[in-house]
């Protein structure tokens, strides 16, 4: 809504009257109020009881991981539903799902930084945290799903007395590099970004242990210009390193499938399709986290409807790419005149596991496409929250459809089989939700969820030049 008639009488302070867009940050914030608000969440002495409740619940669910993994190590991969021909199941699906979710955080942190999209400042911290924890959850699966996990280190290229290296033509060997790079860069980027804020927390903390803890973490941050210059350079450098990762990591993951020979896997559309899908599910997860956070921690003025709107727009864009990908798959399975492709797609849609495909289309394409084009939906907090779950379910089903339906009915009809997940599959998967939530709640309590320094950089006060006509004495209280 770019043009308007007479100015309406009641003005929502959050809406910019010229553009009709929501503001990125609520008006009225000062440096002090921003710091107080965000640091207050961390440094409060009264942890909300709901936080304890949530943590306890998450920990309980996370013990599912411990139980499932212990049983797995004792008995073997056979406790899951994997079999021949479906030799990959929940473990790989979950792995790809979690890694995909992580990509949004990196995109927000890195790519949007390079594109100078200031609105990402308030969401990038917890989005990056989401990435780290998602990668933690994802990373356990490649190790657990192998038959002899105690030898998993053989996938690493280390010089050994056997004089054997990993087989580098294998996409799984590439995965090792992709995921480890991703994990390490993400942790470094996330941590370095938090250093100024740890400094703030160190300075504001009352409790000696907190002072000590944040003191260690802030690595002696003084807030000097030199520090800031280095900080900005480091951020840009890491953003530059992380940007290709957003594309390359999930591309490499997609090669697990694209390089294989199975119909339904062996397709060149997977790299862009997977990356788009990853960003899609990642943004959905960011919304899943952002909406409760802004509600419970009263951050609506920092994470505004503008952010939700923008994230919904990104979801719409990537969701459309994903929809295009699905459409192309169907089209090419016919156009290719390849019986393998045709049967694979026909079977995917109408075979015994066809229900999964239609759930996928409904949750990934039909519902989002039917709603996200409308602004009203994009700024409806409740709808976005529900939709974020729907999309994540849809993205999980996408990997399920890809992994399971391509495998269980492939080339030789004599080896067609079926896939039925067992309770250990579910326990491990649901346990990782608990693990993720547990880690995230700890993060919410112990680290600044929203970057203090970056928000302050967005305030109108920063546009005041010292010594100019509109100079203002910046007092200590104002800081």
């Amino acid at each position, binding site marked *: 809504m770019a043009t308007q008639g007479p100015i309406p009488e009641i003005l929502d302070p959050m809406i910019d009257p010229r553009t009709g867009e929501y503001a990125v940050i609520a008006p009225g914030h000062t440096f002090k109020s921003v710091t107080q608000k965000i640091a207050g969440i961390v440094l409060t002495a009264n942890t909300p009881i709901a936080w304890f409740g949530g943590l306890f619940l998450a920990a309980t669910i996370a013990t599912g991981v411990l139980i499932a993994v212990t049983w797995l190590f004792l*008995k*073997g*991969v*056979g*406790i899951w*539903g*994997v*079999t*021949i*021909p*479906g*030799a*990959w199941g929940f473990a790989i699906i979950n792995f790809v799902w979690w890694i995909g979710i992580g990509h949004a955080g990196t995109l927000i942190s890195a790519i949007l930084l390079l594109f100078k999209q200031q609105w990402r400042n308030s969401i990038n911290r917890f989005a990056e945290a989401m990435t780290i924890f998602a990668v933690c959850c994802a990373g356990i699966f490649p190790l657990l*799903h*192998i*038959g*002899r*996990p105690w*030898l*998993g280190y*053989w*996938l690493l290229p280390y010089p050994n007395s056997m004089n*054997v*290296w*990993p*087989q580098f*033509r*294998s*996409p*799984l*060997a590439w995965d*090792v590099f992709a995921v480890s790079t991703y994990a390490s860069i993400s942790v470094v980027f996330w941590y370095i970004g938090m250093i100024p804020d740890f400094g703030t927390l160190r300075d504001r903390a009352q409790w000696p242990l907190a002072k000590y803890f944040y003191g260690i973490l802030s690595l002696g941050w003084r807030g000097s210009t030199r520090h800031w210059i280095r900080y900005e350079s480091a951020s840009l450098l890491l953003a530059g390193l992380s940007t290709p990762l957003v594309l390359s990591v999930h591309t490499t993951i997609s090669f*697990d499938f694209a*390089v*294989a*020979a*199975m119909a339904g896997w062996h397709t060149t559309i997977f790299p862009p399709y997977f990356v788009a899908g990853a960003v899609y599910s990642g943004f959905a997860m960011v919304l899943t986290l952002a909406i409760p956070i802004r509600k419970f921690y009263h951050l609506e003025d920092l994470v505004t409807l503008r952010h939700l709107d923008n994230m919904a727009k990104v979801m719409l864009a990537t969701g459309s790419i994903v929809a295009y990908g699905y459409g192309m798959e169907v089209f090419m399975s016919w156009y290719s005149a*390849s*019986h*393998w492709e045709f*049967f694979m797609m*026909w079977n995917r849609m*109408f*075979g*015994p596991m066809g229900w999964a495909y239609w759930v996928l289309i409904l949750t990934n394409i039909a519902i989002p496409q039917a709603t996200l084009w409308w602004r009203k939906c994009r700024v409806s907090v409740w709808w976005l929250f529900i939709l974020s779950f729907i999309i994540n379910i849809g993205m999980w089903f996408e990997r399920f459809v890809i992994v399971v339906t391509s*495998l269980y009915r*492939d*080339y*030789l*009809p*004599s*080896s*067609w*089989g*079926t896939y*039925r997940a067992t309770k250990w599959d579910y326990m491990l998967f649901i346990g990782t939700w608990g693990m993720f939530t547990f880690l995230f709640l700890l993060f919410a309590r112990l680290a600044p969820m929203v970057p203090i320094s970056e928000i302050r950089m967005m305030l109108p006060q920063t546009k005041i030049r010292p010594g100019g006509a509109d100079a203002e004495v910046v007092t200590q209280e104002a800081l």
Partner: protein
Amino acid sequence: MKTTPMEMQSTMPQPQVVNTITPAKLTLAEVRRKLEGTTGKRFWKNLDELAGTPAFQELMQEEFPRQASAGEWVDSVSRRSFLKVMGASFALAGLAGCTKQPDEPIFPYVKQPEDLVLGRPMYFATAHPFPTGAIPVLVKSEAFRPIKLEGNPEHPASKGRSDAFTQGSLLDLYDPDRSQHPRFRGEQADFGDFQQQFSSAVAKTGTGEGVYFLSETITSPTLAAQWKQVQAKYPQAKLIQYEPVNNDTARAASKAAFGDYYDTQYNLADADVILSLDADFLGGIGFPGFLPMAAAYADRHRFDKDKPMNRLYVVETMPTVTGYKAEHRLALKPSDIDAFASALAGGSATLTNPDAQKFLTAVLDDIKKSGGRFAVVAGPQSSLAAQSAAFTLNASSKAVTYTETVAPLPSEQTADLKSLVADMNAGKVQWLVMLGTNPLYNAPADLNFLDAFNKVPNAVHLGTHVDETGFYSTWHIPKAHYLESWTDARSYDGTISIIQPMIDPLYGGKSAHDILQTLIDPSISAFNAVQENAKTYITGDFPTGWRKALHDGWVANTAFTPKTLGAPKSAPAAPASGSGIEISFKADPSLYDGRYANNGWMQELPKQVTSMSWDNAALMSLDLMSKLGLEENEAIELTLNGRTIITPVLMAPGHPNDSVTVHLGLGRTADAGRVGGGVGFNAYLLRTSDAPLAASGLTVARGQGTYDLCVTKVHNIEHRGAYAQRDLEHPLSDKDGTFSLAGHEAEERSIIRYATYDEAIKNPDFAHTGASETLVNKVGYNPQGEAVPHEESFFPDAWRYDHTDRSTGKLQNRWGMSIDLNSCIGCNACIIGCYAENNIAVVGREQVKIGRIMQWLRIDTYFEGDLHAPRAHFQPMLCQHCESAGCEQVCPVGATVHTPEGINTMVYNRCVGTRYCSNNCPYKVRRFNFLLYSDYDTESLKFQRNPDVSVRSRGVMEKCSYCIQRIEAVKIDADKNNRAIEDGDILTACQQACPTNAIVFGNLNDPAAKVTQRKAEERDYQVLADLNYRPRTSYTAGVINPNAELA
């Protein structure tokens, strides 16, 4: 087991100083022995009793000081839980880790036995005595332990071939549930005591009155001679032979036709037309003469432009592999088969069923046209009418001869058993000596054998297991396995083989010879008896002849000569057609009559045609299922003559309507052993002595819940599809056809390629060109044909397999395999051979059900056409050893690599188990150890393992290796002896077992090798060639020879 007394010097005063350890009054081994053979409640009862004794408590104190400390042992709750944990280990042999292992010194040979080189196997000849005729075998012994059986390549009848039962019988030798000592009234006893008791009791009777022997079919001439001796000494003693699957109809028909018992010999090499009347002669050695007949059939069934191809017609109830190899198959219920047989013999009667009439006319025409070069085959499971019809028609056949019976004492067994039971009920039987039979399990239900049995004061059971009968017998004597015994037997053609033991009886087992010898002269052993009897048929210098017979595995010039018999008398009229649903009782294709129920390999083996494993079912047609409103996996109640059993339902494609087939041999109790106990249902409970093959008047009732059947293949209903019906090229019948989606796809993807004889003559390259005679980019084909030139490869430096070894100057080896689909009869011999050779694990029912069976080689059965009367194709599928293997590319640790000779090897030690290789294998021949499947604990099973093949642990992928251990062994040997490797030196296990020579393996760089010639044929094709994996295993497309009248 005694622990050595230890003295510990201790200067410091400590609370508990152990100065000596006195040996416990009871040892763990004794505990095991006390608990041996008990199962279930009896086990716990015994264990509990034992646990109360002070000797046991002392033992516990010594072995498990902490657990059995005074307080805990007194507390009954913790004692019980402790016993629960330890209970299993007391009874099972060798569960290591729970007890202190005894110190056992290991000595190397000071004086090594002659010819023994440790690590180098030795081969000995013997035979597998089977009721239908002995199968001559060559046993591979590793340090005097038999580890593999092969056919004896020099034997005139079998020529080195073998079958599934023979291959599987090796595992029975090492069965951990075998009976390990004689028992008297359940307590451990001594064989000498038995001999004492038995011989004195029989001597007291004077004439042998009241002494009855109930034996399995006697196949040993020596045993027959011993029986004659017993009879001479004790004229009133009686011998009854009974096996549930026997040859009664053939005997009765032979008597009626020719006045005496004769065996039929079919020389299928001379038959252009073969008609089988419910005779599964390609199924296994359950049919007498299976090995030579299958070989001859396959030989005549090879497509050769210059030689006429044979044609097989089959009339049967239960679909079998023979039925599916047939060009024309007629599915009839048992009474209709009788009518058909009568019409056939009569030559003129018309049948009500128009399809049957058409079939009959065509068959008779064909038989007439063959000019005597035909055979009508009837077998042990064919009805009397079928047998008689076969005799009548075969009178004018040049391919059928008659000989004296292979069994030295032929009889009509069911009738004999009936009279035995009558005697038992009348109290005439004082001693019932059962030699290798299990009548409490498999006797006809109407005889109420248990009641009669309870009237016998002394029952002696000679058996390999304390089975259903052994448990209730007064005396149980463990029977020696044939690999542990001296005996002899005749094979199908009459040639005598002397069966020599390969290993000392593991558990002190005795043979039937020993039992009979007790009454004649206990001092003479079985060996002496066999040797004495051998003097009757070994000509010339006896010691030389004896040694030659043992060396060769057969005695020359003992084959039967054909008899000339008069014209057969006309057959009795067939009984009137039964009403209602008929039931057909068939021996199980994997377990026979139940004797292999405790054999893990045989239970796990997917059965022929139905691909069921670890189960049996009521097999019926789709129409009957819909008529009764049944679904697969439903449990139903079958009632026959007031007796009822509960079975699951499975659709058998091609089964006739209004009839049900059940397989015998399952449903055994826990006494059968840990493998066989409780598997399947017992069809013997319905079977009566008046109708052992088929009966009418069966009623089916629903409502017994569901039962998830274990089936490994995809013919069943879940994989039918509307898609298959839309895209078929074959004309549909009027009623809604039901098609196997899998089978349809197999055709569509050119996995199965075949043509009729005429088509093949017209277009010899049909396997590559299809109908249009041009190279087509058809699914599954390789557009440039099967041999892609290397110049087109993306990897131009790819190994070309044409290197010359610089030191020897020889061209390198290039291994490959070719499988002739025309010859494969789906008999499963190759699969069991592979299991035995490669230490493949048995995974059990639940794992097989979800698809984790570990067989490296499988027989894929694809049903083509309407499932009411389909064709079926058998395709052995194993690792194709692709030159451009997908699995090799995707293994992240490089655990699967390609050798310079072309084998795709699996490095078990490197495999971490990502299973990517399995995903990338389009043939899905890779098998993964999802759990620890290999049995690391059971001691006796360790003896069977092939030491040249790793036993795989959990988390490791495995697959066919082209028996690389055999290749390497021959290469090493050839290298040491400076000779070239000839074609035929290396035989893979599957190749060696195959009765029809369908599988050929060899060096593709050798132009004279059989495999090179097979691959040079026009019909040679690769499965999934268009994926460009370049498999080294190729298949020869099938050719069938249908009758134009019936097409």
